[in-house]
């Protein structure tokens, strides 16, 4: 199964093409440019280098949040557009879960942390055990100090990554279970999104639901427009 996967939920623009679990190509750019400028050229260049046509792709995938409002929208819109245009299935995966897949070869507690600003982190806790990732908490926003406190309740190695990695590392200073993180594992990468997407897609009983219409961004907080539509205007 050919998968085109991307992540634009934080500053890193990440794209990968895989054939099942085999990586065909990957691009990770963290150079401070906007996703709207980077993402489509990165996809185009990767497709060309891989010698593939868009019609060869069987599944389009993206991290659908939580994360930067603009980044989440760019990623989800791009994948929705490709899936609609080529009439192929698409799937959104949790941005924290995709980050957790960076550590699939490590056994321990995985704690992705993305900077949600104003001293908050987007986070979830996962257990990585013998090549499988199990979610222990839902995606949430949590103050760094609270998360650091929570991490003291786990035994064994704790691996942290994401754009808020430095924040939680500082907050959890003194917790000897927190392991150092290799630079390449700190950031989003398209392969982890593809792997997470493949596993979720294969585990789903009903695959008819993976349509461009069904793919939705996950903000963890309703947008102003949604709240107004729901009559909750403050």
């Amino acid at each position, binding site marked *: 199964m050919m998968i085109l996967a991307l992540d634009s939920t934080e500053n890193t623009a990440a794209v990968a093409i895989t054939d099942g679990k085999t990586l065909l190509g990957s691009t990770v750019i963290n150079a*401070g440019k906007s996703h709207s400028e980077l993402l489509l050229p990165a996809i185009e260049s990767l497709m060309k280098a891989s010698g593939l046509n868009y019609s060869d792709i069987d599944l389009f995938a993206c991290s659908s949040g939580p994360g930067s409002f603009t980044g989440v929208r760019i990623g989800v819109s791009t994948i929705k557009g490709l899936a609609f245009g080529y009439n192929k299935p698409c799937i959104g995966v949790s941005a924290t879960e995709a980050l957790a897949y960076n550590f699939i070869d490590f056994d321990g507690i995985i704690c992705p942390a993305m900077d949600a600003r104003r001293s908050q982190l987007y986070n979830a806790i996962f257990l990585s055990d013998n090549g499988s990732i199990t979610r222990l908490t839902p995606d949430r926003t949590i103050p760094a100090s609270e998360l650091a406190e929570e991490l003291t309740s786990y035994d064994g190695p704790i691996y942290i990554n994401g754009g808020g990695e430095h924040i939680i590392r500082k907050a959890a200073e003194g917790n000897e279970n927190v392991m150092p993180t290799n630079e390449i594992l700190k950031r989003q990468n398209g392969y982890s999104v593809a792997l997470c997407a493949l596993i979720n897609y294969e585990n789903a009983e009903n695959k008819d639901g993976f349509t461009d219409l069904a793919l939705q961004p996950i*903000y963890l907080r309703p947008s102003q427009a949604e709240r107004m539509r729901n009559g909750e205007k403050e």
Partner: protein
Amino acid sequence: MTSLPITVVTASVIETENVGRELGQYLLNNGMTDAFIAMYGDLGAGKTAFVRGLCDVITPGAHVCSPTYTIVNEYYGGGRTLCHCDMYRIESDDDLYSIGFYDYENCVIAAEWCEKIPFALPEKYIKLTIKKLDGDNREITAEEVENI
């Protein structure tokens, strides 16, 4: 302008723009191209005129207009970006998130009506107050604030 705080009285829109230019030059001279300028002043005080002068230095060539309806205008010029925000219709942190406010980095942000977002002001910012005096006269105060 070589240091802050300053208080000046202007007698016309052009003079208000000129104070914007001076602050722009101050920011450039001090490498503050990621500064946050929190602007306070009534309707018609001259906030947009001030930003016009600011942009003339920070993002030369950009056409400045009021962000009342758009909430955020982005101006580009001189290899830099300036985001001109109007917070008048912002009611909560979720509103700010959903205009992409937290995605703006490495740019000067000039935000009007910061009375509406006291919860989102950064740790360090420049507080700019424009007070209407008689006629076209305006008292403009700029000061650096540490909000820790």
